[in-house]
């Protein structure tokens, strides 16, 4: 038996529902959309620079930055020593002198090695002495790739809890580009969670130029429905959409909200969908306890209580490290089927 042989083979093409495609769009993979955003910002703004381990000559562990050192030179695409903490502190220092560094963590899992720079310095600085810290931290996260406990983490909740940061998690190529543009231009430290699983497996239309900007703090309604709301983000959006399609076949009308920004959460959109359907299913790949789903549930339980017709339900990664072996990882990572089962139960409530 071999596992995941076709993990990267079936490419999903996602139409962006709701938004009429802008005049100029291209079909890009999720990864290409990220690279496109980096290139676009590097061209547009001379203060933007990239830093990271193996991002220059090698083009990055996932080749996201491939070709950029050739175009922009090693002054703007900086291969660094293997030192996440110094790297992130250095980015802060550069930002104090007019740069807008975009720092690549080789995997989101290594963000913990530079934790202090983010949560203690960058997050608090503007509050303390008024100096903005316009840095972007790219964190390639999440699982499904048989990469084991240290290359599959979804650790966004650490930062969603920490005041002073912004956290985004695009689920589509258009958002991957659009949110990265916004992150780089934001005067605050933004952690940009990109989903490795989607890098090459997902393609979609991506608006060009400024038209593609996606504002931080705004969720996207990916599917409208009446009976149930699924609230999710990242790779789970696609599992949720599959589940919703399955439910439609069974005659159910399901709404799917893609959070896109995890901090600040789009409370309005969250509460609007909860109030509309009265039944909420929250889905994320990250470990359940104290994850973003808990916060979303709490917001709804406080501010949309009167509209609820059933228990706020969560489908999330169990509270374990992400295991390596395929049957274990498959049991760990929520899938359309898991979501379907939970949704059916909630619909029947």
């Amino acid at each position: 038996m071999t596992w995941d042989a076709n993990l990267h083979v079936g490419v999903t093409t996602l139409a962006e529902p709701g938004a009429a495609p802008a005049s100029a769009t291209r079909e890009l993979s999720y990864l290409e959309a990220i690279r496109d955003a980096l290139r676009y910002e590097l061209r547009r703004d001379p203060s933007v620079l990239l830093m990271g381990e193996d991002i220059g000559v090698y083009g990055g562990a996932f080749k996201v930055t491939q070709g950029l050192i050739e175009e922009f030179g090693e002054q703007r695409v900086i291969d660094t020593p293997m030192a996440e903490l110094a790297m992130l502190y250095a980015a802060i220092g550069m930002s104090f002198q007019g740069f807008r560094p975009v720092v690549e963590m080789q995997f989101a899992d290594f963000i913990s090695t530079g934790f202090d720079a983010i949560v203690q310095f960058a997050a608090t600085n503007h509050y303390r002495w008024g100096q903005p810290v316009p840095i972007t931290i790219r964190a390639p996260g999440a699982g499904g790739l048989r990469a084991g406990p240290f290359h599959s983490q979804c650790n966004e909740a650490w930062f969603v809890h920490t005041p002073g940061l912004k956290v985004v998690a695009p689920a589509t190529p258009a958002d991957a580009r659009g949110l990265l543009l916004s992150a780089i231009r934001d005067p605050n430290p933004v952690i940009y969670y990109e989903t490795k699983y989607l890098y090459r497996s997902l393609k979609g239309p991506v608006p060009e130029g400024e038209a593609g900007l996606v504002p931080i703090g705004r969720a996207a309604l990916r599917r409208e429905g009446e009976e149930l709301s699924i609230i999710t983000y990242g790779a789970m959006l696609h599992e949720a959409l599959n589940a919703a399609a399955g439910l439609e076949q069974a005659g159910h009308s399901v709404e799917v909200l893609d959070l896109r920004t995890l901090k600040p959460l789009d409370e309005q959109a969250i509460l609007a969908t909860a109030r509309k359907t009265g039944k909420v299913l929250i889905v994320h790949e990250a470990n359940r306890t104290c994850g973003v789903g808990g916060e979303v549930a709490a917001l709804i339980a406080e501010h949309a209580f009167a509209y609820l017709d059933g228990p706020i339900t969560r489908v999330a990664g169990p509270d374990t490290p992400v295991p390596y072996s395929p049957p274990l990882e498959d049991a760990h990572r929520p899938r359309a089927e898991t979501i379907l089962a939970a949704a059916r139960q909630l619909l029947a409530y």
Partner: protein
Amino acid sequence: MELPAELLTRAHYWMRLTRALDERGTFLHKQSKIVGGYFSQIGHEALSVAAGMALGPDDVAAPMHRDLGTYLVRGLHPQRILAQFLGRVGGVSRGRDANLHGMGDLSLGLIGFISHLPASTGVIAGVAHAFKLKAEPRVAMAFFGDGGASQGLAHEALNWASVFQLPMVVICENNQYAYSTPLARQMHIEHIADRAAAYGMPGVIVDGNDFCAVYQAASEAVARARAGAGPTLIECKTMRMRGHAIHDNMAYVPPELLASWAQRDPIARMEALLRDRGLLDDAALTALLAQIEAELDAAQAAAEASPYPDGATVTEGVYAV
């Protein structure tokens, strides 16, 4: 090389101002006007003032909790410092950060300090990196202590500075203790400057209580950095003459050790030098001290006139807009 009279006189003023301001801080804490912690820097005046004076106006420094002198030399007004200590709106952090933390003001080339040592050494590496990328002839200066030297970040930041050959000067203030921990429990070597070799950068040892020695070493390092010749690590040997913070009675420090360092008080040495060179006499000193007290009285009055922040503003300013 003999330093010019004007420079020494200026340095003397800064050193005296630093000590007087520090003593005022201690007193305000005794009066419960400053609440929470307070860190005294007595004994550090020579190194903090000298390092600060070695920089140019466009350079950037990240002093730490005992580098009051550097803040002053770079132009941070005592009024803003006292208002900071007192938690007032007029303080550098507008009441948000405590004592010497968060006293950043880039218009003065000052990075605000966070507790997590030696954070600002990492930040300074980035500032220096920016100077290099922009090809600006500017220098960034970091400070860390004998305690901070044990932190991984000290290593990462020094390595970073040397890999990229950045215009950075690192002042290691070896004051023999990190809180209660003596040097020998912090490291198994005698001279922190010897670590410079681990990064292929010059390491210099100076008497941190001798203004002239620190000033000369720092000026050379600044010149090297400005010329594009890379970073330097300067170890200033000194002694923390008070407890770690105000509540600490330092029972763990052998009295002989303190007594021997008291003989080497940086201000006394500076004044002996000035007198030797005919630049100071009793009358001039008395006048200077009176002038400084008057300055500080005015600064304190202004600081105390500054209001406390309004609690309703607590959530303001978390994000830049």
